[in-house]
C-alpha cells in the first residue's frame, strides 16, 4: 500500500444525515494538523449497510470498524490509530458491550452476507472513476465491445438465469432478446430507479455507492440490443444519488466510456437522467415510460410489452437498478459462476432493506435461498428491545406478511409467492407484538389508494372500498360480513385491475386475513385491539396498587382528563380522554395500563 492507512467514511444517505460529511472534513483537517496528511488517504464511500450503527468509519489495513463516530472523534482517531497504531477501543463495534468484535469479518451482521450488487459499496469512492476501474470496472464493457457478439451476451445472461429484481422476476435475457430482435432504427435503454416502496432503499444505496456499475451495464445493454440512448428515471427525492450519477456520467464521458465512439469501437452510447416526481405507480414500467415522456404516469395494458413497443413507441429494455448492477459481474465472471449462487428457482443474490423493529436495521445482500430466520436473527440481531417477533412484511404495498411458523423458508421468488407474499423490490419490515396487524394493512391500503392513478375502476373503487372497510373495523364498527366482503373485493381487484399496482394492492389484506384472522376477529367481535394500537378500541386505566400519586401524568395530560390529589390514586375520566398515550409514556411506575 502506498499509504500508511486508508480511512473509509460512509457517505450513504443515512450516515450523511448523521453528519458523516463533518466527520470526513474533521479527519482531513486533523490529518493535516497532526502532520500525516501525506500518509493517509481519506475516502468518502457509499453505504456500508450497517445503518443502525452509523456514522461508520473503517480504517485499513487493520480493518478496524468504528461505529457511531462523531466529528469530535477525528482527533483521537488520527492521533491514536494512525500515528500510534493503537485502535480506539471505545469506538469499535462491540456486540452487547463485549470488546471482541473489532474486525469486519467478525461482525455477525456481515457474516452471512454475499455481495455482488453491493460489491463496491463501502469500498470505493463513488465520485472517483479510477477506483471503480481499479476493481475491474468497465472491464465487462470492454469484453462486450471487442470479444463478444450480441448472441454471446444474451446467452451468458440466459446461463446466469438472472431474473428482474424489481419485483416480478421476469428473466432478463428474454427482455433483452425481444428488444434485440425488434426491427427498429431507434431503441432505448431505461433504468427504473423510481424506488417507491416505502421502507426500502436498496437502489438508492447502490446508486450512491457504486453509480458506475449501472452506467457500465447500460452501455453493455446498448451494444447488445442496438441502442445508442439510455435514460435513468430516478426519484427527485434522492438528491445525493442524482449528484453522484451526474459526476459518474461526466467522468465516464471524459474517459471515453460514454458518448461517441466508446473506446474507439465505433459504438456510440449516452445517458440522460429524468426525474420522477413522487408517484408510486411510476414504478410500473409503462407508467414510468409515460412519465419520461413528460406525461401523467398512467399505465397502459400489456402486451405490447415495452421490449417491443416502449418509450416513444420504440423497443425499450427496462430493468431496475439492482438488476443492472448484477450485469457487469455476470459478464466478467460468467453466467455459470452466477448460476451456482442461490436456489434452483432463483439465481444470484438479493439485496434487502431490513427495517422496522429489528436490532440492526440496514442494507443486507444475501444469496437467494437464505432463510428469513438467518436474515432476521443472525444478520439483524433479532427483535429490538427484547420484544416478541410477530411477522415480517416483504414486497411492500404489493406483498404480504410472513409469520413465525415460516421463518425457516429459504427465500426465493417462488417460495415467497407460495406464502402469499412476494419478493418485491426488497423491503423487509419486521413487526413486533406492539404492532396491530389490521392497522398495518390499513397503512398499506391507504398508501395504494393514495397512489392509484385512477384509470381503471377495480383499483380506483375497489381500493377505496377496502380502505373504508378497514377504517370501519379499526373504529370498532366492523361486522363479520366485512371480512368476507374484503376477500371478495380483493379477489376481484386481483383479476380485473389494469396493472400490478391494483392487482397486488389487496395482498396486504388477504395475507393478514389468512395468517391473523384471530386478530381481525378480536377487532370485529370483541371490539378489542390486542396490540393496543387502534385508539377507538383501547382505554387507558390507572392501576390503583401501582399509582403513588406523583401527579406527573395529570400535569402532562393535554385535556386535563386525569384527576387526583398528591399521594392519592389518580383516575382517568374516560369520556374526556383523547387516548394520546402521554400518561402512559410519562408514568415511571408502570401504573398505567392499556386495555
Amino acid at each position: 500500500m502506498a499509504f500508511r492507512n486508508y480511512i473509509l467514511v460512509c457517505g450513504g444517505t443515512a450516515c450523511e444525515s448523521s453528519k458523516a460529511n463533518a466527520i470526513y472534513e474533521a479527519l482531513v483537517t486533523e490529518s493535516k494538523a497532526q502532520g500525516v496528511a501525506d500518509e493517509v488517504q481519506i475516502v468518502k464511500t457509499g453505504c456500508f449497510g450497517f445503518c443502525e450503527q452509523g456514522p461508520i468509519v473503517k480504517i485499513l489495513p487493520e480493518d478496524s470498524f468504528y461505529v457511531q463516530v462523531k466529528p469530535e472523534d477525528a482527533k483521537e482517531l488520527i492521533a491514536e490509530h494512525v500515528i500510534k497504531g493503537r485502535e480506539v477501543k471505545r469506538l469499535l463495534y462491540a456486540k452487547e458491550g463485549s470488546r471482541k468484535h473489532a474486525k469486519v469479518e467478525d461482525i455477525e451482521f456481515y457474516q452471512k452476507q454475499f455481495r455482488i450488487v453491493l460489491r463496491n459499496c463501502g469500498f470505493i469512492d463513488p465520485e472517483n472513476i479510477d477506483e471503480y476501474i481499479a476493481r475491474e470496472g468497465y472491464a465487462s464493457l470492454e469484453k462486450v465491445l471487442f470479444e463478444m457478439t450480441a448472441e454471446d451476451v444474451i446467452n451468458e445472461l440466459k446461463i446466469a438465469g438472472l431474473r428482474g429484481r424489481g419485483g416480478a422476476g421476469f428473466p432478463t435475457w428474454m427482455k433483452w432478446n425481444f428488444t434485440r430482435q425488434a426491427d427498429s432504427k431507434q431503441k432505448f435503454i431505461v433504468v427504473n430507479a423510481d424506488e417507491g416502496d416505502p421502507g426500502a432503499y436498496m437502489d438508492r444505496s447502490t446508486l450512491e455507492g457504486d453509480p458506475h456499475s449501472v452506467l457500465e451495464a447500460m452501455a453493455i445493454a446498448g451494444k447488445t440490443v442496438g441502442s445508442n440512448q439510455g435514460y435513468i428515471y430516478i426519484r427527485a427525492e434522492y438528491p445525493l444519488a442524482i449528484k453522484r450519477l451526474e459526476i459518474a456520467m461526466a467522468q465516464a464521458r471524459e474517459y471515453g466510456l460514454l458518448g461517441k465512439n466508446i473506446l474507439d469501437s465505433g459504438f456510440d452510447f449516452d445517458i440522460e437522467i429524468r426525474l420522477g416526481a413522487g408517484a408510486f405507480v411510476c414504478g410500473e414500467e409503462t407508467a414510468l415510460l409515460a412519465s419520461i415522456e413528460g406525461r401523467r404516469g398512467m399505465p397502459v395494458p400489456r402486451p405490447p410489452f415495452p421490449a417491443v413497443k416502449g418509450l416513444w413507441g420504440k423497443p425499450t429494455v427496462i430493468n431496475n437498478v439492482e438488476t443492472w448492477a448484477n450485469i457487469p459481474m455476470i459478464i466478467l465472471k460468467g453466467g455459470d459462476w452466477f448460476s451456482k449462487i442461490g436456489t434452483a428457482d432463483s439465481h444470484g443474490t438479493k439485496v434487502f432493506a431490513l427495517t422496522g423493529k429489528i436490532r440492526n436495521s440496514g442494507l443486507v445482500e444475501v444469496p437467494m435461498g437464505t432463510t428469513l430466520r438467518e436474515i432476521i436473527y443472525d444478520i439483524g440481531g433479532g427483535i429490538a428491545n427484547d420484544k416478541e417477533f410477530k411477522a415480517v412484511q416483504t414486497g411492500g404495498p404489493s406483498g404480504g406478511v410472513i409469520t413465525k411458523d415460516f421463518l425457516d423458508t429459504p427465500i426465493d421468488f417462488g417460495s415467497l409467492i407460495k406464502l402469499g407474499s412476494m419478493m418485491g423490490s426488497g423491503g423487509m419490515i419486521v413487526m413486533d407484538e406492539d404492532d396491530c396487524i389490521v392497522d398495518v394493512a390499513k397503512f398499506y391500503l391507504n398508501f395504494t389508494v393514495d397512489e392509484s392513478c385512477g384509470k381503471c375502476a377495480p383499483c380506483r373503487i375497489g381500493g377505496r372500498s377496502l380502505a373504508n372497510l378497514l377504517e370501519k373495523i379499526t373504529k370498532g364498527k366492523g361486522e363479520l360480513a366485512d371480512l368476507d366482503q374484503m376477500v371478495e373485493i380483493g379477489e376481484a381487484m386481483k383479476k380485473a385491475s389494469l396493472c400490478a399496482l391494483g392487482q397486488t394492492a389487496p395482498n396486504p389484506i388477504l395475507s393478514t386475513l389468512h395468517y391473523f384472522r384471530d386478530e381481525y376477529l378480536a377487532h370485529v367481535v370483541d371490539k378489542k385491539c390486542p396490540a393496543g394500537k387502534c385508539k377507538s378500541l383501547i382505554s387507558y386505566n390507572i392501576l390503583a396498587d401501582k399509582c403513588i400519586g406523583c401527579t406527573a401524568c395529570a400535569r402532562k395530560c393535554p385535556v386535563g382528563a386525569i384527576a387526583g390529589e398528591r399521594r392519592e390514586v389518580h383516575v382517568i375520566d374516560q369520556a374526556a380522554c383523547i387516548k394520546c398515550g402521554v400518561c402512559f409514556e410519562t408514568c415511571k411506575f408502570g401504573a398505567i395500563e392499556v386495555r
Partner: protein
Amino acid sequence: MSAMKEKITFSKGLVAFIEKWKEKPGNLIMVLHKVQEELGYVSREAADKVAEMLDIPLATIYGVLSFYHFFKITKPGEHNIQVCLGTACYLKGGEMLVDELTNLLGIEVGAVTADGKFSLEGVRCVGCCGLAPVMTVGGEVFGKVTKDQLPGIIAKFK
C-alpha cells in the same frame, strides 16, 4: 388571456434551462422541477409562463402538476417540515410526530403557519429507514426523533 394577469419574470438561469430543454421530447416534468427548485412551488403565473415558453396547454401542465405528489402549487413556509411516513417510520411512531407537530405549530398537515415560517407535510420514505422515525426541516435530516425533541428542533429554526 395572459395579458389580463400579472406576469412573472424567470431568472436568467431558469430561462436558459427552459430554452435548453425546449426541443427535447418529454421535457415538461424536468422543466417543472427546475421551476419549483427556484421558486419553491409552481404558482399559477409560473405555470402560465411555462405554458407559453414550451407551447404546451395550461391544462396539460396542471394535469401533470396535480398527478405528481412532489409538485406544490401553493407556497410552502420558509422552513418546510417533512415527516417521513414510510413503513419503517410509521411503525416507529412517525404519525405521532405528525400529531405532535400539528399541536405545536397549530396547523394541519399541508398548511403553513400564519407567520409563513413553517409548513408541514407527511412524505413517503426519505430513504434512511435505519434512522426511523425521520423528519426533515428545510432539507436537514433528523433521525430517531422523539416527541420531546420536537420543540427544540422547531426552536432551532425560529
